[in-house]
Structure formats: structure tokens, C-alpha cells
């Protein structure tokens, strides 16, 4: 069957927008906002959208545990099977969906690295709703770069970045990429 290697175009960094400390501070602020908005930690579940939303969700949960002294369950959601572009982009390797608790009646905070068209979040709504019936779903993202194609808005944003559609925003995380950073650049064909 031979999966021909995807053509790797070269990513050229134009600038580094967030450094490790910026990322850390943004996540701490988001964590506080989440607790504030939720009026505490009751019924709170933090669910990261794979791939990079998952470690962010874990970090937010750890941060909340830090300043609130309460354990907030966190998990990861693979939305691949709910995407509306499967037919266009082809199948990808699936990763496990690990949701820590029954979602019925919970306040689910979805976490992703970059909010762009909104289509991933739309897929995540469907995925969450197939798992249970939360009381509310809220959305936290590290970066909002604009260019929405669906009427979706984040509740908690680490950094708003006005970008051109041709630009690529990349989030690097220690757990996956070996460093924390937000980069902006372009693919060189």
C-alpha cells in the first residue's frame, strides 16, 4: 500500500511571536480565567484537541491544581473522524481519545493551540456531544489568528495575532517539539 511520504515543503520562520515565558504566562492567565468564569472548579473538565491541544490541557489542569489546590480532570480528544475534510485530505493516523470522566452535566473547556477557520472546533463539538451531554462547552486557545469560516469565538485567548491568510502560525510545545514557542512564517514551495 506504500504510503508515499507526504511532500514536505520547507517552513521558513519569519518571526518568533511568543517565547517560552510568554507561553507560560498566557497559560497561567487562561487557567485563572477558566476558574473565574466557572466560579470555581466544580464540574470542570479540560479537554485538549489533539495533537497540541492535549499537552496544553494537561498544563492548564496542572496550573489550576497549583493555585486552587483542586484536581481538575483533563483529557485528549482526537477529532479526525469528525472532520469535514477527511475526503479532501485523506485519512490520518488516529490517536486515542481519552476523556477522563462522564461529560454529562459537566462544563467542558476545549483547548487547542491555534484558532483559525473554526472547522476543527466544529468537529470537536460533534465529538464531545457524541461522548455525552455537557452543561456547557467553552473554548480556550493559545493563539487566535483570525480568518474564521464558521461563527465560532474563543472564550479564553492567550494571544490575538492578526495574520495574512498566506502566513502559517506554528505552535511548538516542549512535550512534542522540544521547546515552547509560537512562530509565524511561510511554506516555501
Amino acid at each position: 500500500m506504500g504510503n508515499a511520504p507526504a511532500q514536505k515543503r520547507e517552513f521558513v520562520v519569519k518571526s518568533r511571536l511568543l517565547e517560552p515565558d510568554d507561553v507560560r504566562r498566557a497559560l497561567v492567565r487562561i487557567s485563572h480565567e477558566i476558574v473565574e468564569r466557572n466560579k470555581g472548579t466544580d464540574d470542570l473538565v479540560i479537554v485538549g484537541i489533539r495533537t497540541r491541544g492535549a499537552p496544553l490541557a494537561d498544563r492548564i489542569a496542572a496550573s489550576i491544581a497549583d493555585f486552587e489546590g483542586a484536581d481538575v480532570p483533563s483529557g485528549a480528544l482526537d477529532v479526525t473522524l469528525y472532520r469535514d475534510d477527511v475526503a479532501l485530505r485523506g485519512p490520518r493516523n488516529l490517536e486515542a481519545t481519552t476523556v477522563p470522566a462522564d461529560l454529562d452535566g459537566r462544563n467542558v473547556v476545549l483547548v487547542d493551540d491555534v484558532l483559525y477557520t473554526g472547522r476543527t472546533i466544529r468537529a470537536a463539538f460533534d465529538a464531545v456531544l457524541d461522548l455525552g451531554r455537557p452543561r456547557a462547552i467553552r473554548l480556550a486557545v493559545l493563539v487566535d489568528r483570525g480568518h474564521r469560516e464558521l461563527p465560532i469565538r474563543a472564550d479564553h485567548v492567550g494571544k490575538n495575532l492578526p495574520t495574512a491568510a498566506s502566513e502559517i502560525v506554528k505552535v511548538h510545545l516542549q512535550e512534542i517539539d522540544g521547546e515552547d514557542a509560537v512562530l509565524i512564517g511561510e511554506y516555501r514551495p
Partner: protein
Amino acid sequence: MMKHLLSMDQLSSADIVTILDTAESLRSVTDRPIKKLPTLRGRTVCNLFYEASTRTRISFELAAKRLSADVINFSADSKSSVAKGESFKDTAWTLEAMGVDAIIVRHGSSGAPHQLSQWVKASVLNAGDGQHEHPTQALLDLYSMREHFKDLEGLKVAIVGDVLHSRVARSNVKGLVTMGADVILIGPPTLIPPQAATWGARIGYDLDEVLEEIDVCYLLRVQKERQSEQLFPSLREYAALWGLDSRRLARMKPEVLVMHPGPMNRGVEIGADVSESPRSIILDQVANGLAVRMSLLYLMLGGRSEDGEVFE
């Protein structure tokens, strides 16, 4: 991903691992209240069955429905269709005209899925052809073995019984050999011709000789209708020499797995108590079949159908 799945020959060990890993991710969906995924919405899958097979057809049908594909079932008796009804090719073209994206075909004639794949643009999945292959059965069997033994490499698997007429045996030997398992075919020479040695499997005639060394004992169904062909003297003698009873089970490793593709002939190839023992994973095989078939439908239909899409 490949366009058609006709034979286990097509799959490398990396391909098999991708299929099984994907199945593993999908397996969890079958345990939750809402078992449906929207992935193949708008796609149409046809079960084209020229041989009666309730279990395989239902498994494929459910797999497609769990992924939100539309499913058409087309059953025909292969003999009557040749005698009078529409030809295989005309049926294929009719389905093509209806715009099906995949045809899952079971046929009594070896190679029929291969021929079908040359006539239609849709993906063709072999759900068992004659005495040739049954690749999805082999994949679900590999999945079931991998659930218990992390690594298939070096695993000692005995396949016992009518290898000659068994498409399950052919596909399993190919898959297991690809994954590096050590396969021993056991049965009388009337059922295991010497050419089978070219598949990379060992051949033995005595089940008792290998009981202590094997990790998996895979029993093939004795096709009672072949009794007239004088392949062995009687079912009683077959059961005595090659049937897995509790006495033989007791001599095997404690972690041995007993497998069977179903439907079983209890008291012939397998003792009733053996099929219900904790070592038997025959029902797991059925459940895993669903996940493996979902995995294949997702990998084969999930992408751009024309250009053999890549993974990211």
C-alpha cells in the same frame, strides 16, 4: 492507502500495523453509548455477497454504518446467477452506475474480487473468494493475537485442519509470516499439500507433537460437506487425531490462545468445553472484526480515492 484489498500479499508489515493501530483507536467507539462516527457521511458501500455469510456481511454492514456510510446489500446465489440472472460483470457495472464508492465482495470463485477490481472504479474489498483469501479475517485474527501478545514476531502459531480448501488459512499464513510469526500447519496430508511449505510455514501431521510449544492454536472449520471426498476416514477419527479437546488444552502453555474463524463444529475440530474455556478468544475475534473492518473502510475510503492518499 491502497485502493483495493484483494489479498494479504498486498500488505507490508508497516501497513498491517497501521491498520491494526487504527482499529485499536476505533475499538473504543464500540464501547460508548453513541457508536456512530460521521467520517464516511455521503459515501456508499455495497455488500455484494454471492455466498451466504450472515456474520461477515453483518460485520461489514455495521462497520460501514458506524462510520455513517450508506449501505446497500446485494445477495445472489452464485450458481443461479450464472444459470439465469445477470452476469457478475453486469452487476458490477450496475453498482458502478449507481455510484457506489466501495464494493465488499464475497464470491465462491477464487479471484472474483480481482476480476471485479478491473471492471469498476470503486474500491473492492475481498470478503472471501473461493479457496483463495479472506484478508479481513486474517487482519482481525492478527488484531486479536496482538491484543494478547505485544509482538507477533516469533509467535508460534499452529493452524490446524483443512488448509487446502481454506481461504482463512491462506490469508492468515501470509499475514503471520509477514509479521514474523512462526507458523506450523497441522493436519493430514490430504488437507495440507506439500506446496504449502513455500508460504514460509512449517508442516506437521501430528498435533500432539507441537502442543507444548505453541502460543496460538488456530482451528479451521471441518467442512462436513467434504466428507464425500475421502479426505479422512470419519469425523470421529478426525476429532481423535486433530480435534482440540480439554485433554490437549491441558498440555498447552497456560497463556495459549484458542482461535476459530467460526462457525464451529463442536465436538469435531473443537471440544465444547474448549470453546468456552478462558483460553478461547473466539467471541473477541467477532468483536475485533468490526473494528478492523471500520479501520479498513476509513483508511480506504477516507481519503481522496483517485491518487492513493498519504498519511500526515
